[in-house]
């Protein structure tokens, strides 16, 4: 993060401004990725007019970085109309897409509208592996062709590679592909539960051995000894810190207008079809509860040696049943990185609990009662 963006983030935090918002335009998709956390039906997406109105409200609320994601955003027939509206409002627009519908014409239009970046999911450099994950034959070729089109227009492309059992040996190949295409590449070893609480997808995540290999890969982490060093226990300032930007300077809006702290944190806080975006952001009881949580308030983590360096995701903790609790997936990552079990892992062992994530408690995500102004339609119910 640049120094200016860091400064702006701190200012936004102080002023309670949502600097960055992801809007999913649809959950419909033309791929069927085996690890995807969404259903792919249309339960009543916001109309073009509703989304434009939302963008107007978000600009007024001070949102600067706008990420359009999905589902597959290019399945919205009004996609370019929405993008054009967003750029008129001078958002910094980022896109997340599988890119299979991007050809020369679309790439040229994206250049004309000056999107900041396009993040494209690539799971392997090998078609037989990538296409087996997307369940769409020929999808890797289509996505790579799209990257060529986008690069030829001078656009910034980022390859996003999710690490799973099916592709765990291929991330060096994806990085080599990214270098060949002259694009950035990110690697994410987290497979999230589905938004309805179903954790079956989590079993696709890689185990401790592969995580150790990744965390010791100097091409990814630089100085592996420093990266994997056992951290010092959290100090006073760390215990007073907030977990992440979710609900603090960032939030997420679903295709149905539901507002959540983050795409990975499906706690309903309101619906823009019934309330103004800024009112949900400022006054939602749930959003303010998320905002009130400091590291010292968590149930197990304050005593954990990893607390200051852990990537604990409050949304994953929420999906395990307690937004103030540990996120077992992040405990596993801290353990793989340092070899030191987390406080949560030790507590589970003492309690004789089976730490298998596949057997973690299933949480059905609750909706706000109708009186609180949340749509009952949609995937979150």
């Amino acid at each position, binding site marked *: 993060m640049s120094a200016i963006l860091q400064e702006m983030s701190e200012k936004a935090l102080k002023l309670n401004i949502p600097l960055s918002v992801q809007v999913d335009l649809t959950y419909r998709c033309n791929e069927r990725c085996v690890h995807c956390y969404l259903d792919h039906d249309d339960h009543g997406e916001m109309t073009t007019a509703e989304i434009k109105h939302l963008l107007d409200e978000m600009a007024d609320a001070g949102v600067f970085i706008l990420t359009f994601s999905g589902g597959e955003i290019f399945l919205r027939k009004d996609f370019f109309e929405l993008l054009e509206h967003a750029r008129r409002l001078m958002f910094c627009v980022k896109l997340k897409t599988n890119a299979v519908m991007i050809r020369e014409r679309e790439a040229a239009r994206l250049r004309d509208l000056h999107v*900041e970046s396009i993040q494209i999911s690539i799971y392997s450099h090998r078609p037989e592996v990538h296409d087996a994950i997307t369940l769409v034959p020929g999808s890797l070729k289509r996505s790579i062709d799209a990257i060529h089109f986008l690069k030829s227009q001078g656009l910034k492309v980022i390859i996003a590679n999710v690490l799973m059992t099916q592709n765990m040996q291929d991330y060096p190949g994806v990085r080599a592909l990214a270098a060949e295409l002259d694009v950035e590449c990110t690697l994410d070893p987290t497979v999230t539960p589905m938004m309805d609480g179903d954790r079956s997808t989590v079993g696709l995540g890689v185990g401790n051995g592969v995580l150790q290999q990744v965390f010791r890969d100097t091409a990814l982490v630089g100085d592996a000894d420093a990266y994997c060093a056992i951290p010092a226990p959290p100090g006073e300032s760390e215990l007073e810190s907030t977990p992440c930007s979710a609900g603090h300077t960032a939030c997420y809006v679903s295709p149905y207008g539901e507002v959540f702290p983050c795409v990975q944190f499906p706690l309903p806080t309101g619906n823009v079809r019934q309330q103004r975006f800024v009112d949900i952001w400022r006054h939602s009881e749930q959003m303010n509860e998320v905002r009130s949580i400091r590291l010292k308030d968590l149930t197990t983590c304050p005593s954990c040696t990893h607390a200051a360096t852990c990537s604990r995701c409050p949304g994953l903790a929420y999906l395990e049943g307690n937004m103030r609790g540990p996120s077992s997936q992040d405990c596993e990552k801290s353990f793989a990185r340092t070899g030191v079990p987390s406080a949560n892992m030790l507590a589970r062992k003492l309690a004789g609990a089976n730490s298998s994530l596949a057997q973690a408690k299933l949480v059905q995500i609750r909706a706000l009662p109708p009186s609180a102004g949340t749509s009952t339609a949609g995937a979150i119910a």
Partner: protein
Amino acid sequence: MSRLYLARNPRVAARSLDGEMMIMSGRDSTLFTLNRTATILWQAADGATPLDEIVEHRICNEFEVEPAEALHDAETLARELANHEILQISEEPIPPFTPAAGGSL
């Protein structure tokens, strides 16, 4: 003497944060924050109002400076912002951008 017209470069991303403009360059995604004077120029840069009028009505009133000195400083600043592709400057009025008509941001 020719007049100078300013317009916001439609390629940038921009937002006001507590009165301070945050601008992301469309050229290389560099992030800028504008000081008070630059923010006034940005907000007044409608492509139709000449710089000397902006200075007279928006800058001299706020900063209590001599018009000639203020105009000179404002022109220097406007050219600097144009070098960063934050503003467009022209000796003719700049028409508003209309992407639907086939323009490029």
